[in-house]
């Protein structure tokens, strides 16, 4: 029965999406059909309550503000400067400036708790510059889609808070536990860029003129504004000036200051950035609304819950259990967003995890990496949506570009399984 419902709803979703229905509206339509078809509840009132609740939640305010920050910075010389400063250092590394996407996302992930904000902000700054310099689109978009997901794994991270509360795991330990796996992922991504570039040297544009150390250091002065901005936002979090959510506001103010200092802050730029951010946020907000309602419908229908319970009855060995759960979350991740996945399944799965003797802290990081993979799988993958919004490319095209990074994350999961210390070592060093 559950499998029939699942197949039917998946079929419906693909039909709506292929028919060209706007994605957020398609999610709502599938939720409505699911509730009408398979529950005795009427979809209307719950729809409005849930969508209002998700659309007015305080923790979400960081997203529009970070998007706005990206739009402001896009209209400054910051990205040009950043590339001028970084280029001399990266000239010998195969793949050259493609690494700025990964480094930028990793740094920004330490500021933002969401994957969409990370992907959009760095994308807005880096994409035009990479395109102008002639870097291949597949690599520019792929690295962004992949590295953007680090927003979830490197603290602060909203999904870790959700998991920590559901699974009774220390949020502080989860945050610290995500640091090494985050660095591991970034290293894997950079490694892939190096390998790809060695295999396709003709596709990477030539370096600017070679410089000596003094020249490199002199060029680095261009990095001062971006370093100041990141230090300001990070600093505001770690000195207790702002909470992780409020840091986005600091980011917007900082970008306005940079924009003013570079004399790019005028009326038309301000309005263009503001309206651009408003539309980009609205595009994501409509999908978030659809996703919130689909989650409600799934809660009523009980599909994820039943599947999770069924997995619990299989009596698998810990290793097999993780393989099955990995596949389960990847499939679920094709249709639901990460937080919904955790909320809808943890209550049922947690006893199974504990019975199998899996460390809940380790499992939390495992889930975050799997949820990261879900950000770049079609049809519902938020980083794909963000990049489609930025570039106008088809989701399928972007998903194809992102495929290697999906595989690298799968590899990371295997590595984390083989070396659990990557997750548990740092939190073990904590006092208490």
């Amino acid at each position, binding site marked *: 029965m559950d499998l029939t419902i699942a197949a039917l709803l998946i079929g419906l979703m693909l039909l709506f999406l292929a028919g060209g229905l706007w994605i957020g509206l398609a999610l709502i339509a599938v939720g409505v059909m699911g509730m009408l078809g398979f529950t005795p509840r009427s979809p209307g009132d719950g729809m*409005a309550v849930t969508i209002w609740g998700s659309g007015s939640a305080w923790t979400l*305010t960081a997203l529009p503000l970070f998007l706005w920050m990206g739009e402001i910075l896009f209209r400054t010389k910051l990205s040009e400067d950043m590339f001028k400063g970084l280029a001399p250092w990266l000239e010998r590394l195969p793949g050259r400036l493609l690494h700025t996407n990964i480094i930028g996302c990793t740094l920004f992930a330490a500021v933002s708790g969401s994957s969409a904000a990370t992907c959009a902000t760095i994308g807005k700054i880096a994409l035009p510059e990479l395109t102008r310099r002639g870097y291949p689109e597949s690599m520019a978009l792929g690295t962004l889609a992949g590295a953007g997901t680090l927003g979830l794994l490197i603290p602060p991270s909203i999904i870790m808070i959700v998991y920590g509360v559901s699974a009774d795991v220390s949020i502080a330990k989860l945050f610290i536990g995500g640091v090494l796996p985050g660095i591991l992922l970034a290293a894997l991504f950079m490694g892939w860029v190096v390998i790809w570039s060695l295999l396709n040297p003709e596709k990477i544009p030539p370096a600017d003129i070679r410089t000596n150390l003094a020249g490199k250091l002199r060029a680095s002065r261009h990095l001062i504004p971006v370093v100041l901005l990141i230090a300001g936002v990070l600093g505001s979090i770690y000195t207790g000036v702002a909470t992780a959510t409020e840091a986005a506001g600091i980011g917007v103010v900082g970008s306005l200051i940079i924009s003013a200092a570079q004399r790019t802050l005028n009326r038309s730029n301000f309005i263009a950035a503001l309206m651009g951010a408003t539309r980009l946020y609205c595009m994501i907000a409509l999908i978030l609304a659809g996703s919130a309602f689909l989650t409600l419908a799934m809660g009523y229908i009980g599909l994820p819950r039943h599947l999770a319970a069924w997995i619990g009855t299989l009596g698998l060995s810990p290793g097999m259990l993780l393989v099955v759960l990995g596949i389960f979350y990847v499939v679920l991740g094709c249709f639901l967003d990460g937080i919904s996945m955790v909320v809808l399944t943890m209550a049922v799965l947690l006893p199974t995890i504990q019975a199998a003797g899996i460390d809940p802290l380790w499992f939390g990081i495992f889930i975050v990496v799997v949820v990261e993979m879900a950000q770049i799988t079609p049809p519902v993958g938020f980083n794909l949506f963000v990049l489609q919004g930025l570039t106008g490319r088809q989701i399928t095209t972007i998903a194809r570009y992102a495929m290697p990074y999906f595989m690298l994350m799968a590899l990371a999961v295997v590595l984390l399984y083989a070396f659990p210390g990557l997750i548990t070592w740092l939190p073990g060093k904590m006092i208490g």
Partner: protein
Amino acid sequence: MRTLLNALYRASGAAAALGMIATLVMVMTGVVSRPLGIYLRGTDDYAGYCMAACGFLALAYTFKHGEHIRVSLVIERLGPKMRRAAEWMSLAAGTLVSGALAWYSIQLVWQSHQFGDVSPGVDATPLWIPQIGMAAGCLVFFIALLDDLVTTSLGRAPHRFAHANDEPAHME
């Protein structure tokens, strides 16, 4: 009629942008007031309401810029006749869904008022007030989709706002 409708979409977009500014102002007021030892009630909740107003009020404006994303891969490969039919179908379905969304959002405001639903936070805001932003935004969104559906039914191409020159966000 066209002028009037476009003015409606633009006004809604402008209100949304004010919502974005207000979100920033609320967040920063919270940050700045704390070290000063001033306790301002509910700036975080107000930030949430302003963000909601921004997201919902911008729906139609964003739609009219063609920036709500969708998968056009399949319908682009159809023949012109089939494609027109598919476009019409997705517009019709979209009008239906956004209509339901608008209807239930308006009902949400009404019910919140009837129930006396109040925010449990420090702000203690009667929730029907900020929910008006959602209802209004969804209603204008519905009008925009209906507008396109009617235009398409009449065999004309739906109107889209042009991008300003200073927004080279797209790669192509």
